């Protein structure tokens, strides 16, 4: 039985300020095996980026309060000292961000930014680090790699910048790659290249990947499993094929219906009425209840537990049958 790469149990993340407390993540549990890709799917305000950053404790340190357990590659992230945390970041787990234009330091070259990451985590010399930097640029398919090492971020196009960021993230061969909407800001023809590149690199380097996106199509292209997030909780988890074909949770169903696709022309798009809840004042019961067409009394009294109609699938909805429960 292989060790799990990521174990998250009962993760809560709150942002505390003088005026209010925002409950961004409210009880998230999941595991990730090595070489597996999990996609966290959700809209803005769902808590997906916060969850991702919590795996590296990258949320703003002064305002963030976290509880629960987060284990990555055997390390306890929440209990790590600042030095241990700095060793984990970049070495065991790396992250790529949405906007490569602002995520790279504008006054240092690409080569310098890759090199400093390598030198931080590995005891090799500068010349070896430079060689590795060039290899990395070639692995991410940046043409004229040698010349590009001396380029500044603003001299590269969007697609090349994102590839450079991937090169930086992979420079120390992390076991886990976190991707926060890395293709949202890219053109369609570039997006598909980056997605395929990530798939390829994952296979070659044997990494686990957690990919955050709001686009169901992108999730379908890269994920093994999808977790749909709403108001800081996973409301549905399942294998990509079954979730995309027949989602169980009303929110996931609504998302699928609202996604504009080829066959939709001429029909009216199904929409989810209302708006996401205010994370400062979450309702007591199911957070989706105010917008749900099938709401019952049971939904309002308590947050529904994750119910599992089949192994590997689960949804936080009282209408979903729970075979494991019923079988017991």
């Amino acid at each position: 039985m292989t060790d799990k790469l990521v174990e998250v149990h009962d993760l809560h993340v709150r942002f505390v300020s003088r005026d209010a407390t925002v409950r961004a993540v409210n009880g998230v549990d999941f595991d990730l095996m090595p070489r597996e890709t999990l996609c966290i799917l959700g809209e803005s305000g769902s808590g997906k980026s916060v969850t991702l950053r919590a795996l590296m404790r990258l949320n703003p340190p002064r305002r963030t309060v976290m509880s629960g357990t987060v284990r990555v590659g055997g390390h306890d992230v929440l209990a790590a000292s600042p030095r241990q945390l700095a060793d984990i970041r970049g070495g065991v787990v790396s992250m790529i961000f949405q906007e490569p234009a602002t995520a790279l330091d504008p006054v240092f070259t690409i080569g310098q930014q890759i090199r400093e990451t390598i030198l931080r985590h590995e005891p090799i010399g500068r010349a070896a680090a430079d060689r590795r930097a060039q290899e990395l640029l070639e692995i991410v398919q940046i043409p004229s790699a040698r010349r590009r090492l001396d380029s500044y971020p603003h001299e590269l196009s969007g697609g090349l910048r994102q590839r450079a960021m991937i090169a930086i993230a992979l420079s120390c061969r992390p076991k886990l790659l976190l991707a926060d909407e890395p293709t949202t800001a890219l053109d369609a023809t570039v997006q598909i290249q980056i997605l395929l590149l990530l798939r390829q690199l994952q296979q070659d380097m044997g990494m686990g990947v957690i990919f955050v996106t709001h686009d169901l199509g992108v999730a379908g292209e890269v994920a093994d499993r999808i977790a749909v997030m709403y108001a800081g909780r996973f409301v549905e988890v399942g294998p990509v094929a079954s979730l995309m074909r027949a989602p169980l949770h009303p929110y996931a169903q609504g998302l699928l219906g609202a996604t504009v696709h080829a066959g939709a022309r001429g029909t009216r798009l199904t929409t989810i009425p209302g708006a996401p809840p205010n994370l400062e004042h979450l309702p007591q019961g199911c957070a989706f209840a105010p917008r749900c067409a099938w709401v019952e009394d049971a939904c309002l009294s308590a947050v529904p537990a994750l119910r599992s109609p089949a192994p590997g699938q689960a949804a936080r909805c009282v209408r979903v049958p729970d075979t494991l429960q019923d079988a017991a």
Partner: protein
Amino acid sequence: MLLYLLRRTLYAVPIALAVSLVCFSLVHIAPGDPINAIVPADAPQEVVDQIRREYGLDKPLPVQFGLWLGHVVQGDLGRSLATGRSVWSDLSVAVLNTLRLAVAASLIGFAVGCVLGGLAGVFQGTWIDRVATGLAVAGVSVPHYWLGIVMVVIFSVELGALPAMGAGPTGGGAWAWDWAHIRHLVLPAVTLCVIPMGIVTRTLRGIIAEIMGQDFVNTLRGKGLLGRTIFLHVVKNAAPNALAVMGLQLGYLMGGSILVETVFSWPGTGFLLNSAIFQRDIPVLQGTILVLALFFVVLNLLVDLMQTALDPRIKRA
């Protein structure tokens, strides 16, 4: 890049010319006939006419400007009406004295300002930020001639530790970098540094706070870089704008030290301007203003070039 340097330098020439024109015109813009500053009101007409011809004041204005400019370019700024000495000889000594004072005040002010501004920016919102910002506001708000007088009262009169006047033990003689001379520099430099200190603190705080809020800082943390490495990144990003502000502050200090120099009788350009104004010594006034203004133009140019060198995003075309 070289072409850019050349082009920027050449752009400074018309600016310098315009500045000279303004300096020259000051005398003629002021109400009254400039001749009245030279001869007493009850002088006979022939004397007035003769003086007018001597000083070239009977020629048309553009010709006067051309002649004056011609002299300036050769280094001849005329003769002082009060002392009869060449303006340039007095001015060159004064400029050096002011330069020493300005540089000393800048170094102290910038050093303190950078430290306070850096702390305020990194620890934005905490008590450190509030203390640093408070000091900065105090520095900018306190009238510095008043501060100078207070310093004199405390350190010269009460404690007798530091001298209150002059630039050296002999009053205004040659400068030397020894303690006997430097102790004269201490009080005026500290008095003069509070304004640039305040401005640099406030500006740097803003720059650093803005940079710390940018996405790439998160990327740097995510790479596992340690605090001091991240700080170096922030400093390099802040450098172009911060250094520009400091360069301009140095320029202001060169021209704005009239009050402090008068309080401490520091024989610099401010002191010279002060006495020239009271004595209506026009050649000295014109010469001093011109030199200070040109200094500012050159400083601006240097700051521009330095910013371009430090920030790779600015086009070098």
